[in-house]
């Protein structure tokens, strides 16, 4: 059996099984994130949320999925057919392939590569293509506006996100995600790098087009933004991709700042739980804040969004990067020095 797994065919099968064992729970998590969002928003707005399908409305996501599947796929006559169909697939698959490098436990990543952080950053910066292609291929005004908004927004917030990542990398001395988590054994980076943690979290909100930065969708201004013309499964793919992206960003926040799979403080009652469970719980905590923010803040105006990205986050993260580098150098705390 072990011999077989070392042959190319065995390796392919092993990778397939690994991918499935990561993606199936991920998709179930996506389904229940939509449920959690409606429940949490309901609780915060003194409503009940979904409570009809199944006990406590627990089968609601599946009812929604079946509804989506049954509907007719409509492709507008003026649309660019190939790109119109490609865009949601792109969004969805980009949200999935990023998970290849996420370590769920010590060494539990499908691909434990040396440039893991760069890979994640590269994939998350590609997310904009699904949206911009959808907006253009729809050949319609509102989607196009949404696509333009989204392109400008995501490019802007990527810059400060990059600086935050570089700051973390300075403290770790490696681009490997596994090393980043193990470097936080004694102290999570959320504590010494707290301002960067906040900036990173807000940037992930902007990067995933979540409220209060959901201008690309902005239903009160541009109907539903880039997916106005989408229906049925193509819409469902966008929906899945967006929520999978949220989970991915929460996982990134967990790995970079909240110590990944490590138990808090590394002491007895906490260490009884296995690492992947801690990883899952931390992701859930970050996702809850995503939902909480949505229930709390009104949408930003576009100029405010741009001002926040370029005039506040960018100078501040640059300053903090130089500060952290200086402190590390002055006290001789640089890793691998």
């Amino acid at each position, binding site marked *: 059996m072990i011999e077989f797994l070392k042959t*190319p065919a065995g390796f392919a099968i092993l990778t397939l099984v690994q991918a499935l064992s990561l993606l199936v729970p991920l998709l179930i998590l996506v389904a229940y994130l939509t449920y959690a969002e409606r429940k949490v928003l309901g609780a915060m707005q003194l409503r009940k949320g979904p409570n009809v399908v199944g006990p406590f409305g627990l089968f609601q996501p599946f009812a929604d999925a079946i509804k989506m599947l049954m509907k007719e796929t409509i492709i507008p006559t003026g649309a660019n057919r190939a*790109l119109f169909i490609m865009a949601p697939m792109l969004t969805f698959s980009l949200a999935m392939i990023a998970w290849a490098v996420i370590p769920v436990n010590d060494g539990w990543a499908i691909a434990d*590569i*040396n*440039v893991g952080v*760069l*890979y994640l*950053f*590269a994939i998350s*910066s*590609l997310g*904009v*293509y699904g949206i*911009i*292609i959808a907006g*253009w291929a729809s050949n319609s005004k509102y989607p*196009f506006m949404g*696509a*333009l908004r989204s*392109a*400008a927004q*995501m*490019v802007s917030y*990527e810059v400060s996100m990059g600086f935050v990542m570089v700051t973390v990398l300075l403290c770790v001395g490696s*681009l490997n995600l596994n090393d980043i988590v193990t470097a936080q054994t004694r102290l999570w980076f959320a504590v010494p790098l707290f301002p960067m943690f906040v900036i990173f979290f807000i940037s992930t909100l902007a990067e995933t087009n979540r409220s209060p930065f959901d201008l690309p969708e902005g239903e009160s201004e541009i109907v539903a933004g880039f997916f106005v013309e989408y229906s049925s499964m193509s819409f469902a793919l966008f929906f899945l991709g967006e929520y999978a992206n949220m989970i991915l960003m929460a996982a990134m926040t967990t790995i970079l700042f909240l110590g990944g799979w490590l138990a808090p403080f590394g002491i007895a009652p906490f260490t009884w739980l296995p690492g992947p469970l801690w990883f899952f719980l931390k992701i859930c905590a970050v996702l809850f804040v995503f939902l909480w923010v949505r229930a709390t803040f009104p949408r930003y*105006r576009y*100029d405010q969004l741009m*001002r926040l990205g370029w005039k506040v986050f960018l100078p501040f993260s640059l300053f903090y990067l130089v500060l952290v580098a200086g402190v590390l150098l002055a006290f001789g705390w640089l890793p691998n020095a």
Partner: protein
Amino acid sequence: MIAALAFYLFAAILLVSAVMVVTARNPVHAVLFLILAFFNASALFLLAGAEFLAMILVIVYVGAVAVLFLFVVMMLDVNFSQLREGFQRYAPIGAAVGLVLLVELALVLGGWKFAPGAASLRMAPIDPAVDNTRQLGQLLYTDYVLLFQAAGLVLLVAMIGAIVLTLRDRQTSRHQVIARQVARHPHETLVMMEVKTGAGVAELGILRPPVDEPEPAGDAHESHGHGGGH
């Protein structure tokens, strides 16, 4: 064997998409093919073991530069018949530029033939124990830090030049001064009035806005710009 197959696959897609960049009729399709070409180039980097370069290629070119390309191309209203009109006129110039590039490429590749020393430089020894991210950092930030900084300065000058050329401070646009908004108190802008029932509001002058404080001298042109122009 698999690596060789992957190489030929990526190289073939790279070449085909590079040809499509020039021949595609729709400019948006051309940019998308350019992105595909970038992707395959980065895959080739990966096959060559240069994982840092591969990722940086995707982050910088696909994630940022090509987005802006696409952004601009989508908003342009390109008139194709007009574009083709100029073809006859500019064809000789284009051909000349292409020829110069071809000769340069031939010289670079032929250099290994003419100068035997160059071939050994091409195979500069790299330490297999050190990963290539570290090696690149060593080269850029330690060995050639002066050249690197000089290149950065050139880019900075180019950036400032671009901003200076395109920035116009339109006197008609109304800017939002956040500090002033935050510094204002309700009692400066709000007046509580007692209105008698049925007396109406017109005679009392309630609808007249309270007298504004004098504007700071610097932005006198935006007399009521507190809310921003939106």
